[in-house]
């Protein structure tokens, strides 16, 4: 199985996603503070195979996948499935007709 991307790339990916979500002020967000804090805490470890570091790396990769795929899913949804139904005027206009107008309102309308 291919190994995960390096922690630096994952970190930069997460920051890019946060910037896409929040705009220019992403550095003040809670998620930014937490992610940077976690990265700093887990950077230095004495053992060669540190389980907490592996867990943190996997968790960060998972979070990056979550942010990226929700963004892509939402983009695809808006692109292909977001239009909704046409209004009755547009539907009539498709075949070249217009809806009738009744100046006094229909019987049940007030």
């Amino acid at each position, binding site marked *: 199985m291919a190994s995960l991307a390096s922690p630096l790339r994952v970190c930069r990916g997460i920051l890019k996603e946060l910037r896409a979500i929040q705009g220019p002020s992403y550095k003040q967000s809670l*998620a930014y503070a937490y992610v940077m804090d976690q990265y700093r*805490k887990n950077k230095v470890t004495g053992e060669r195979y540190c389980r907490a570091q592996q867990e943190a790396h996997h*968790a960060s990769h998972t*979070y990056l996948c979550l942010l990226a*795929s*929700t963004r892509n899913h939402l983009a695809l949804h808006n692109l*292909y*499935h977001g239009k909704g139904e046409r209004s009755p005027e547009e539907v009539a206009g498709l075949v070249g007709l217009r809806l009738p107008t009744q100046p006094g309102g229909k019987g049940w309308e007030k």
Partner: protein
Amino acid sequence: MFRSIVRLGNALSLNKVCPRRHQRCALKYSTAAAERKKFYEDVSISQGEGGLFEINLDRRKLKTPGGKLFTVPNEALAIAVATEWDAQRETLKFYTMHMTTLCNTALDNPTQRDKDQMINAALKFLETDTVCYRVDEPHALVELQKNEWDPVLHWIENRYNITIGSSSSILGPEIPEATKDTFRQHLNSYNFWSLTGLEYVITQLKSVVLSLGMIDRHLSVEQAVLLSRLEEEYQIRRWGNVEWAHDYDMYELRARTAAGALFVQLSSESSTVKRKLLQD
């Protein structure tokens, strides 16, 4: 003007009434509206009693659809949920807020299930596990399944000391009772929240083997999703990709699986920071 009312399946019924601004924003399961306007500006978290974290939208506390106060056991989960709410623009799109949905399910437990029922439901997937179901033809697909799925099966057999075969018959493989007991014991060691997340992931990937492989950090989310959709990927490579169906499904599956995996990991970890003094 007569406005058409959109029906979205039998679970949700859309009431075309302007959303009323309650003092407490309680959303009910039965009358969930598909679109709500964003009614807050800031999202923040706070720590309540018992060390549980709560989410504040402006100054109102977030509540679950069942009416309970929305509390999470640790800060990381709270921040993930807060980021989801913060990511909404103008309208609230609940189908993108996977962590919130998982937390709501774990808190409310609307189907009133206990741990044993959930473990049984999860183990039922073992009998029809994706990784164990092979085809006989076309030959390229058989090879692909053997190359991609067999290593995962070997890994899980070694890790848990069990045997699961793969079969190409319509009934599926015979899973010995010892295997099921081992898994049952393993699943019992997770707490209720983690089990909710784990069962969600198993339902999404349609495979116990792949879900455990991902939770145990043997597979990444993208790899697990790829293996779960192996036959679809094979057909896509053969016949071409349809973006509005294939990519859409893939991203949705990735998002849900990633949310479930993160949920399990955050619910079952307890981190302590041990500072070692550098001795010089």
